[in-house]
């Protein structure tokens, strides 16, 4: 199970001398088990903050987040995360990066390796098993980051613009691969993006957020059949609708 409930979350960041900005204002959201949800919105709308709060990396000032009914207060291995920046540990090889999570859980070395090999194969980088991150391209690094997060067998995979720094073609490939992984492992994915195309291609549900203070503007259920055609007329229509909403936000 991987059901996330966000109820009445507010997060404020301290600036200097007592001043603070409200990054999230009273946000409610339900994410169903095995759902693929995308957060989209103008920059500074708090989409990353919401994701980080679900990860447990930020503490809400108000409200509560639960995973399958249990309170989330600190990070733990039930929620895996893939970051926008390259976050692989540069001093560990590819395989050592993937074993990190299981190793922290205190799982035996053999079992850890077994799990890691499985996910290494999943992302198709077996021949880079013993390479260091600096030897990999951006796309490969993010593949390893996904494998590393999955090796912990989380219920929810949180992704913060993971393909933002990649070129368009690599990005498309990785989106397809991610959908395959999602279909295979049946986990909940929460994905932050600033790309309308990406959201339309990936999501079951698109959460459109409004800027400062971050609120949820609209939740759109996407019922386009999978596998999706990026250029179908339904996809285009949805894209237009989203673009209009975002343009509206920018004007405000």
């Amino acid at each position, binding site marked *: 199970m991987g059901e996330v409930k966000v109820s009445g979350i507010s997060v404020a960041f301290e600036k200097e001398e007592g001043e603070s900005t409200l990054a999230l204002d009273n946000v409610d959201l339900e994410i169903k088990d095995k759902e693929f949800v995308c957060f989209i919105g103008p920059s500074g709308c708090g989409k990353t903050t919401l994701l980080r709060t679900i990860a447990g*990396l930020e503490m809400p000032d108000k409200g509560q987040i639960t995973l399958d009914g249990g309170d989330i207060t*600190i990070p733990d291995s039930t929620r895996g995360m893939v970051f926008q*920046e390259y976050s692989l*540990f540069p*001093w560990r090889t590819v395989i050592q990066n993937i074993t990190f999570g299981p190793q922290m*859980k205190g799982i035996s070395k053999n079992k850890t390796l077994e799990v890691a090999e499985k996910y290494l194969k999943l992302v198709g980088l077996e021949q880079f098993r013993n390479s260091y991150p*600096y030897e990999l391209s951006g796309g490969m690094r993010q593949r390893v980051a996904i494998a590393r*997060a999955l090796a*912990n067998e989380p219920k929810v995979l*949180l992704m913060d613009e993971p393909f933002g720094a990649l070129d368009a073609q690599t990005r498309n490939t990785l989106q397809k691969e991610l959908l395959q992984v999602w279909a295979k492992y049946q986990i909940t994915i929460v994905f932050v993006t600033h790309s309308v195309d990406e959201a339309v291609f990936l999501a079951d549900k698109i959460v459109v957020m409004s800027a400062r203070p971050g609120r949820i503007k609209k939740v759109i259920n996407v019922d386009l059949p999978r596998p999706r055609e990026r250029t179908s007329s339904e996809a285009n229509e949805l894209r237009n609708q989203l673009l209009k909403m975002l343009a509206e936000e920018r004007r405000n």
Partner: protein
Amino acid sequence: MSKHGTKGPRERGIELLSVTMAIVLWQLVADLVVNNKFILPSFTDVLFAFIRIIEGGILFTDLAISLLHFGIGILSALLIGIPIGVAMGWFKIVNRALDPLIEIIRPIPPLAWIPFAIVWFGLTHTSAGFVVFVGAVFPVIINTFDGFKSVPKVYVEAAKVLGCMSSGSLIRYVALPSALPSIASGIRISMGVGWMCLVAAEMFGVSTNGLGYKIWWHYYLHQMDFVLVYMLILGFLGLFIDRLFRWYVDGQLLKWRAGVVV
């Protein structure tokens, strides 16, 4: 240099030529201009002195004693300096508490500690090691601290969401490896400073052996050619230790970094 590290035969030739020219010039100046073995021993004087030292068999003892002093100083600098740097870099309160103390003690030249070294440790090897330690410990502390301060936040967060939660584990699995390049260059600086302190540390009579002690001893005997031999041995040994350390750190410990420059 053509590419980093690799030298063509032409460049090697230039280096060899430069060293040879310097030796020839030295020999000529010493023989024809100065012509006084006390003020400037010539290259051949030094060579003969070196052969006599080798024949006497005492060089090995001197080397061993000096490396003992150096080792005591450097090892204790690492054992004390790294944990202090780690604690200061990871826990803000430790930094606030220790920083003023360190800033007050650090500018005291290591050689100024010699009287206390004698009072506390007597005329022992430990005493010489202590002077080396005082010179070596601060670069280790400061570089370890800097390395810890600049651990990228994303590594710490990535580790946390992977289930690495306690300070102990985060330090061991994330901060320490991430700070290692900085710690390594701190150790390198501290070995340089420690080596410089060594001669002075051996001059106040902790032992009747040691490279630094021998410089002083031969000076009293007015054997300046022997003084120069020991000076050159100190120089070459320092260079060798530095190269050995770099080879180990770059080639083994930090091979995960592309294009390493320690």
